[in-house]
């Protein structure tokens, strides 16, 4: 089960046309997603994590998009492989919401305010599976029940403004699960929610994943959430992957100085026990995407940089096992810490 790849992303790049010229938002991103696993996609705002997830669904805004490069091989339930980057629009629509679903950051604005939630869930089902509206509504009621919405049958006729943010996100999840997708892409699904509701939604997603065996790509900037839910983690910085690996090695022994900085900027109650200062921010800010430094894009903010770092962009190299890092000094830095 674990060995099967549902998604094989190769050299995915996304370029937008802007008034200041082409902007490469995602650069040569490659990764695989195994059936049933949770892959966390971590990074600051503007790191390209949301664009990556939208590009897999081919939902990046069409107007300023100039180029979608690379390939996204998706293995369907029938075992057939398709490249989502080149798939024709009709076939892509048949994948969206059916085999790959997505939920978004803003539950308050992600549901259509003038349609009943039952209809909003059912329409995807009727479209993809060609069953009657009545049967689809029945399934929608079952889904609402499954995502923990009490009195599900009656809620079918509720409008989004009748529900709280947490409830709306549950509706979004029900909608995403409507056609039993193989992959669920969750773009910061808990960021806009209260902490207690966040925990409930995470718990719900974990349960549903165990029940359905779907793979999840979880986009977040919250490392606490990553530790909670992920099997593997991928860290992005200015459009490229800078480190990826299993959740335990990556979070306990991060190799890339940027990942270390991210982990150190999480407030802790026991910093001394971990040999850390109370709270360390990464100095500076994300580089201007129009004027990326020629070398390592993190070098200007990195306190371990040396002149060679600023000369050429390091490659993503295998450190040990499945742990990859894009840093020419990782070996020496690891030795220095040991």
């Amino acid at each position, binding site marked *: 089960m674990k060995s099967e790849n549902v998604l094989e992303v190769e050299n995915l790049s996304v370029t937008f046309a802007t008034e200041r010229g082409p902007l490469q938002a995602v650069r040569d991103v490659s990764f695989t997603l195994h059936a049933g696993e949770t892959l966390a996609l971590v990074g600051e705002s503007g790191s390209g994590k949301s664009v990556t997830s939208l590009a897999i669904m081919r*939902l990046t805004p069409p107007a300023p998009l100039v180029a979608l490069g690379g390939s996204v091989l998706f293995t369907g339930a029938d075992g057939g492989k398709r490249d989502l980057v080149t798939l024709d629009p009709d076939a892509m629509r*048949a994948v*969206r*919401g059916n085999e790959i679903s997505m939920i978004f950051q803003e539950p308050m604005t*992600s549901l259509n*305010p*003038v349609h009943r939630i039952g209809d909003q869930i059912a329409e*995807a089902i009727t*479209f993809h599976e060609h069953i009657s509206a009545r049967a689809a509504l029945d399934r929608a009621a079952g889904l609402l029940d499954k995502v923990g919405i009490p009195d599900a049958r009656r809620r079918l006729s509720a409008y989004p403004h009748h529900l709280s943010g947490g409830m709306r996100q549950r509706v979004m999840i029900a909608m995403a699960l409507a056609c039993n997708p193989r992959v669920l892409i969750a773009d910061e699904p808990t960021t806009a929610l209260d902490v207690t509701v966040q925990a409930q939604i995470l718990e719900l997603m974990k349960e549903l994943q165990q029940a359905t065996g779907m793979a999840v790509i979880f986009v977040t900037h919250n490392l606490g959430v990553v530790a909670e839910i992920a099997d593997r983690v991928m860290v992005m910085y200015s459009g490229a992957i800078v480190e990826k690996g299993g959740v335990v090695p990556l979070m306990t022994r991060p190799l890339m100085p940027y990942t270390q900085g991210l982990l150190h900027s999480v407030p802790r109650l026991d910093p001394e026990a971990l040999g850390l200062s109370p709270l360390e921010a990464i100095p500076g800010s994300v580089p201007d995407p129009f004027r990326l430094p020629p070398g390592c894009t993190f070098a200007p903010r990195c306190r371990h940089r040396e002149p060679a770092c600023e000369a050429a962009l390091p490659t993503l190299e295998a450190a040990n096992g499945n742990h990859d890092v894009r840093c020419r000094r990782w070996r020496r830095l690891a030795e220095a810490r040991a």
Partner: protein
Amino acid sequence: MANFLLGRLLQSLVLLLIVSIIGFAVLHLAPGGPLSQFALVPGLSKEDLARIAHEMGLDRPLPVQYWEWLTRLVGGDWGRSYRDNQPVLAVIAGRLPATLELMGAAILISVFVGIWIGVMGAIRSYSLFDMLATVGAMVALSIPTFWFGLIVIYAFSVNLGWLPPGNRMTVGGDGSFLDYLHHLIAPALVLALVEVAIWSRYMRASMLDVINQDFIRTARAKGLPERTVLWHHALRNALLPMIALAGVEIPTLLGGALVTETVFTWPGMGRLLLDSLGYRDYPVIMGILMFSALLALLGNLLADIFAATADPRIRLT
């Protein structure tokens, strides 16, 4: 809902009262009066005119005249026309169908054509179509209605002979539906032109706003075809602000109808108003004024009620 209607009714009464006071005052502030046209008629002396004015009650203080008019109106008496002594209500009722016909046709054209142009402009924003629509709307808004009406008459009636140059039907004709329709085309298009421009601009902005909303991305993420995303998910939301616009546009349309009816010798309320203004036929002018105000208030009320039924988030209180 009942509270809402009651509140609206009271508001409307106050508004009507204010409209009537201002209308009455402005009307009488203008120099001249119903009798000034007879000033130079031989055989009518100044004394004669003064006597007639006294009999008509025109020499009394303005507030007294207003009070008299108002108390009669409340009693259901709208007065009689100075011109032909017909009851004002009957005069207006005789002209109302023609105006409603013209306005109805113009509303249908402007709503459907305007919305279509607006939606297409939003979906293909900055395309050739969108740019032409934008320029076209600017031109349409800048053209004076009376001038455009004359151009249409010149082109389609005088030169091409396709459309009748005026009137609501062929005089002495069979009065068939097609004859009415034939006469309606030109004035309805002329009256609708400005409205089409307004509607298409508002619709484009509203639709553009909606298609960039998160829930449209959600609809696409569900794999729905673009047609469903636009016409089922986006349009319904984009139309909500248009309902309020419809309520506001009714008085504008009435004002446009006045000009259009005059150009096309259309026997409606607009022309009646213009004729009555020329004669200083105070009772008829006041009657039309009150009627238009009533129509505008009713339009806004209907727009609010309709908006509440179309948008589940709105509650009338």
